[in-house]
C-alpha cells in the first residue's frame, strides 16, 4: 500500500512500493503552488490523507500506464484548499477513485484524460459541505471505447453552498465510448446548491447517461424507515450515513464513519 500524507500544501510520502513513482516538484513561488507527480507503472493502490489548516494550493498529476489497474482513496479534512487534479489514463488501464471530503471552503478542478483505447475511470466522490464548495470536473474521452463512471454525492449543511460542474467530452470518430454521470446533493439547508451536468458529444456511437438531483430524501424513503418505529432524526441519520457510505469499501468505511458521527450521531 502506498500512502501520502499532505499537511497544508506539503506532501510527505509515508510508504511506497516499486509500482509507483511519486515526485514532489519544486514549488512555483510566483503562484505559490506545490506540485505532486504520480506515475503508476503497475497494478497498485494509493491512499492520500490530506489535512489543511490554512489557505493552500496544490497540483496533483497522476499518470496511469497501459494495462495497469490503479485504486486511489483520498480523505481530506480542513479548510481553504485549492486543488487541481490532472489524470492521464492510458490504454487498457482502469482507475478507481474514491474520495471523501470534510472541508470548509474548497475549489477543486479535476481534469481527466482518457488517453488510450479501453481506458476506464470509476470516480466516486462524497463530501459534507458546510461552506462554499465548488467542484469542476472535465472528462475528455480522447480515444474510442473509453469509459467514465462519475458519481458525485454531497450533503449540504450549515452555511454550505455546494456546486458540481461536470462535463464530459467525446470527439468525432471516438466510437463506442460510455459516459455515466450521477450527481446528487442532499440539501439540508435553504441555501442554494447547483449541479451543472454537461455532455459535449460529437459522435453518434456513444452511450451516455446523466442524472442530477438536488433535494432532501424522499417521503417514500422516510416512510419506509419510520414504518419500523424509527423517529425522524434517526431515520435521517440512517439515510445520510447510507448515502455517504454507499459504494465505499469496508476497509475505508471506519474512518468515514468517525467523521459522519461528528455531525449525525
Amino acid at each position: 500500500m502506498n500512502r501520502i500524507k499532505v499537511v497544508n500544501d506539503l506532501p510527505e510520502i509515508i510508504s511506497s512500493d516499486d509500482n509507483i513513482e511519486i515526485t514532489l516538484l519544486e514549488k512555483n513561488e510566483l503562484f505559490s503552488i506545490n506540485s505532486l507527480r504520480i506515475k503508476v507503472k503497475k497494478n497498485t493502490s494509493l491512499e492520500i490523507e490530506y489535512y489543511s489548516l490554512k489557505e493552500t494550493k496544490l497540483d496533483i498529476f497522476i499518470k496511469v500506464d497501459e494495462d495497469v489497474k490503479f485504486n486511489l482513496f483520498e480523505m481530506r479534512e480542513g479548510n481553504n484548499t485549492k486543488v487541481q487534479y490532472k489524470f492521464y489514463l492510458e490504454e487498457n488501464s482502469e482507475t478507481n477513485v474514491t474520495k471523501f471530503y470534510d472541508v470548509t471552503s474548497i475549489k477543486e478542478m479535476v481534469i481527466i484524460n482518457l488517453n488510450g483505447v479501453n481506458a476506464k475511470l470509476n470516480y466516486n466522490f462524497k463530501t459534507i459541505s458546510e461552506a462554499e464548495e465548488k467542484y469542476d470536473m472535465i472528462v475528455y474521452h480522447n480515444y474510442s471505447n473509453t469509459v467514465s463512471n462519475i458519481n458525485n454525492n454531497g450533503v449540504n449543511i450549515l452555511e454550505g453552498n455546494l456546486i458540481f460542474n461536470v462535463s464530459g467530452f467525446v470527439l468525432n470518430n471516438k466510437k463506442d465510448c460510455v459516459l455515466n454521470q450521477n450527481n446528487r446533493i442532499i440539501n439540508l439547508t435553504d441555501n442554494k446548491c447547483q449541479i451543472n451536468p454537461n455532455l459535449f458529444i460529437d459522435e453518434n456511437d456513444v452511450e451516455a447517461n446523466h442524472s442530477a438531483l438536488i433535494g432532501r430524501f424522499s417521503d417514500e424513503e422516510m416512510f419506509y424507515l419510520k414504518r419500523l418505529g424509527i423517529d425522524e432524526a434517526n431515520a435521517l441519520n440512517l439515510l445520510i450515513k447510507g448515502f455517504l457510505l454507499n459504494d465505499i469499501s469496508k476497509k475505508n468505511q471506519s474512518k468515514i464513519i468517525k467523521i459522519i458521527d461528528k455531525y449525525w450521531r
Partner: protein
Amino acid sequence: MHNLIIKNLTVEIENKKILKDFNIEINSGEIHAIMGPNGTGKSTLSKVIMGDPNYKIIKGDILFDGKSITELSVDERARLGIFLGMQMPLEIAGVTNADFLRTALNIKQGNSFSLMPFIKKLNETIEHLKMDKNMIHRGINQGFSGGERKKNEILQMYMLEPLMVVLDEIDSGLDVDSLKTVGKNVMDYYKKNKPGLLVITHYQRLLNYIKPDYVHIIIDGKIVKSGDFSLVKEIEKNGYENITKNDLYDEGKSKK
C-alpha cells in the same frame, strides 16, 4: 387483547376519494383478508393505517386499543405495535439491513436492547426464511429479487414482534416455494404471538397458507361483502365482477 377499529373512514389523495365510509374491526388472534380488484383502495387502506402523510383523512377515525391514532406519526404508530409489510418494498442503497433493524430494535427496546440476542434472533429468522445470510450486510433491498424483498418484510415483522400486522400483497412476486415459505412463516408468527392480522391480496393462493377467519371484498373504497373462507372460493370461481353484481342486487333487496 388488542384491537384496531376503523370507523366510517373517508380518505382522499390529490382531491380523489379512495376510501369511502370504510369500516372494519380487527382483534388480536383474528385473521382478516381483504380482497378486491386493482385500484379499489386496498393499498391505500394499509398506508392510512400506518399513517402515510400523503393521504388525507376527510372523515372517520382509526382507533388502536380504544384510542384514536389519526394524529400520531408513522413511527409513533409503529411503536404502538402496528406493522405494515409493504407491497413494493423500497431499495435504499447504503443503509444496511443490519443497521436498519438494529436502529429500530434499539429505539423499541431502549435500555433493554442487547446486541447478542439481536444477532442470534436475526440469524435464526434468516435461516427460517431461507434467506441469504449475507443479505444482512447489504443495503436495504439492494439487488434483491421480488421474492427476497417480500421475505425481508417478514424478517422485519419477526424482529419487531408487532401486535397488529398488515400485509399488503405480500404474495406478489413470489414463486411457489417462496410463497410457501412466507405463508408458513407468517402463520408460525401468528400461532406464537396471536397478533391481529390483516392480509391484503388478490388471490386465493396466499390464503391457502394463511387461513383467514374473515374475508372482505372491497370495491370502490368500501367493503361490499364479508364472509368466511368460502367467499374466497366464490371469488376464484366467479370473479369480482359477478360478486359485485350479486352484492349490489342483495343490497338493493335489503334496502327495500
